[in-house]
């Protein structure tokens, strides 16, 4: 760890100074790393952040944190959260990506992923007085414990945990000349970020947006869509009310959007709708023009077993619902953290980065972002662990 004997260099010194935070940090590098590293040498085994975030929770670079600065009702069961991220947040995300957010409920952090609804360069907005903010929109799901909690009562000022923006459902820059968005319900949220980005950049091409909602009151961002429709000649919003007209039939596509075959498509909404769209586009031989986003909340977590991916080891294994992840990993030749298999030692704990697992002791389900004990966890569908 100390500078090697092969000679002194500024880079070597810098690396030496940054070493303590490089070991513990997960939030990415910041210009302050050298200083933090130097300070870590006197606060060992803690990091300076362990003290800093006592003063202000946002001053933790060990993990991303954010403060909710505004909660705006969108519909009766949906809300926009405006969040001020703490140290180390990367604002260079792409419109359409989602972030992980952890909310403290009754002493326990719950993780979910939500699409960002703001454009990446939002900070210039006069409304925010130069503050660098992000926003997400959350729709309460009947079975969604956390989404209901967020929509019905997270006060401004609440501290949340954040995970860096990610996801491949993104709009390229520059955008294609002809675009079609097909969304339903809260599937509008990633597309909202795309629309706002196009609008901000003054580069709205030929965009048609077909959005389904049950009633006019259920349309998230309805007012904004209407306003954009009027202000931007390239943008056409087509609203479809399923309460009156039933489900949007893809057979009507030729009528609503005669040139759909010529358009690059982004679709987001309930699973059956996306499955149908995928079939439709595949049948037309246009599968490569289609981009689809499936929300995690709707992924089927009742499955037994699946493919377990061991991310760092770069291996995977097919397992049933009775094989523990520890066994699966050892079987696949991954060097798993040592485990005693008695459920008491906690030496086999790893982070679940994707998918769901189930705790064999009590049947409790864990989802991405949770730390799990591999010795007592089985796969509930495909999942990825950080080993």
């Amino acid at each position, binding site marked *: *760890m100390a500078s090697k004997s092969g000679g002194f260099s500024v880079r070597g010194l810098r690396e030496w100074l940054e070493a303590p935070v490089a070991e*513990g940090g*997960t939030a990415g590098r910041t210009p302050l790393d050298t200083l933090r590293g130097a300070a870590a*040498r*006197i606060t*060992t*085994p*803690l990091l300076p952040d*362990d*003290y800093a975030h*006592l003063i202000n929770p946002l001053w*933790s670079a*060990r*993990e991303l944190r954010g403060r909710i600065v505004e909660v705006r009702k969108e519909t009766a069961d949906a809300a926009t959260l405006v969040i001020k991220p703490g140290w180390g947040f990367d604002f260079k995300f792409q419109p359409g990506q989602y972030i992980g957010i*952890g909310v*403290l409920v*009754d*002493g*326990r*952090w*719950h*993780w979910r992923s939500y699409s960002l609804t703001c454009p990446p360069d939002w900070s210039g907005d006069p409304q925010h007085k130069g503050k660098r903010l992000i926003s997400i929109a959350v729709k309460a799901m009947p079975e969604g414990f956390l989404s209901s909690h967020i929509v019905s009562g997270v006060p401004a000022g609440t501290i949340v945990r954040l995970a860096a923006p990610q996801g491949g459902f993104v709009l390229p820059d520059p955008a294609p000349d002809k675009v079609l968005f097909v969304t339903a319900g809260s599937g509008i949220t990633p597309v909202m970020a795309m629309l706002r980005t196009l609008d901000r950049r003054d580069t709205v091409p030929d965009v048609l947006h077909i959005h389904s909602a049950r009633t006019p009151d259920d349309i998230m961002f309805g007012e904004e869509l209407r306003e954009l429709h009027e202000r931007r000649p390239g943008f056409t919003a087509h609203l479809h009310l399923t309460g009156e007209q039933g489900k949007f039939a893809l057979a009507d596509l030729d009528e609503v959007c005669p040139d759909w075959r010529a358009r690059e498509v982004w679709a987001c909404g309930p699973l059956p709708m996306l499955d149908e769209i995928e079939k439709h586009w595949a049948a037309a031989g246009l599968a490569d023009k289609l981009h689809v986003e499936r929300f995690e909340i709707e992924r089927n977590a009742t499955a037994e077993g699946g493919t377990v991916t061991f991310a760092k080891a770069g291996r995977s294994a097919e397992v049933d619902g009775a094989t523990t992840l520890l066994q699966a990993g050892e079987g696949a030749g991954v060097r798993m953290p*040592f485990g*005693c298999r*008695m459920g*008491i*030692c*906690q*030496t086999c*704990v*790893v982070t679940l980065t994707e998918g769901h697992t189930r705790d064999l002791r009590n049947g409790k389900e864990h989802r991405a*972002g*949770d*730390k799990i004990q591999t010795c007592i966890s089985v796969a509930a569908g495909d999942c990825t662990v950080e080993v």
Partner: protein
Amino acid sequence: MAITDIKAFAHLSAADIESLGHELDTIRRDVESSLGAKDAKYIRRTIAAQRIIEAAGRATLFASKKRWAWLTGTALLSVAKIIENMELGHNISHGQWDWMNDPEIHSTTWEWDMTGTSGQWKAAHNYSHHMYTNILDMDDDLGFGILRMTRDEEWKPINLVQPVANLFLAALFEWGIALHDLSAQKEQMGIPPTSFFPPRHVVNEPNKAFWRKAGKQAAKDFVIYPALTGPAWKSTLKANATANLIRNLWAYAVIFCGHFPDGAEKFTEEQFENETQGEWYLRQMLGSANFKAGPAMGFMSGNLSYQIEHHLFPDLPSNRYPEVSVKVRELCDKYDLPYTTGSLGKQYLLAFRTIHKLALPDQWLKRTSDDAPETSSERKFAGISLPSMPTWNGSEWLAEHSASDWLAEHQPHWGLDPETGERRGLRSAMQEAKVALKEKAAHEKQVLREAKATLQEKARTETALLTEKAQRGGWLSRKLRRNG
């Protein structure tokens, strides 16, 4: 030999032990399902308080050339180190707060303010010690490899230095633990336990991790902080060393009170071989000891004053141990099991007595490993006859039968007392054994006294006889001389 059959020792049937296990499971579930914001607040406030006390202590030491500042700073730093070590480091690394799903307060990320790495400690302590608690040759915490803490271990001449070794262990406890954990990890990984100043070709991961951590710790307390205080560097250095010493002594005392007072039993591998979950619980219960502590002392000991509860539920949050202990005591009453506890002073003195007693070779000691104060076994009950048992010759019988045969034979005499309707188990058996042993001793004394009296009488008669003979002999010799 230590306990080979916990059923026979506890005077409980397999069904009893199973239902005891279920009741303990229920206690665990009740706590788990009631964890919430209040508990989370407890640990967060503890962390904040610890950081503030430590920062205050370090700051005060800038003025440590003045006596009051030195004393205050050292005291604050000692308290901070003790809280960090016991209530935070130990308990968080046990996974007690993993349920919060907070990466900053999690067993996988917490690094403590001790010489050893948290990772090596977790492997040695959470795994070896908590799984094999008090099993001879399996639990390395039994004497930490340098003290002979049970008569089951053979005496060696080196044990004579035990009183001194004990002092060293207490003063340098963090180093003892660190080296102990390092060698445990090497053993688990199949790495030969070469010297920890290894030549280049045997530099291995555990050694590297150990020296990296130990180096950082030593640098912080003995170089960086003293240097930062400038002219006060000497007094700061002294303060840091003192705070480490105080923390070491306290941690040592708490840990020795948890497993080494009389009544904390030891077990053999035979017991472990086919152990059920219920028996596992029972072993943790009988292998640990508590000490009485109010809220403040409980907090400063990381709630390890509730060592029994901690060993039953090592990953339940420590702030819940007091309430759990009430329920565990109720279970002990119900199953007539002992609940080993006493004042901190008493518990430590018992451990202290064992350390010094066992420094001596066996032939100087009275009891055997079946009925010594620090180790007993189910055979303890076999050599004595209790009012509730038929008289029989235990040791001969045991030579031919297993302990479980003995249990089957004598089961009818335990179970529920026909008069009171209460369960009669280990606790009653222990009391009766104590009484019986006392009676036996009194009886033996009586026999001895009588034998002595008989011998004395005999001696008296013989003396008288001899005197008489001598007198007669004297007369004879005089007569002979005269005639000659």
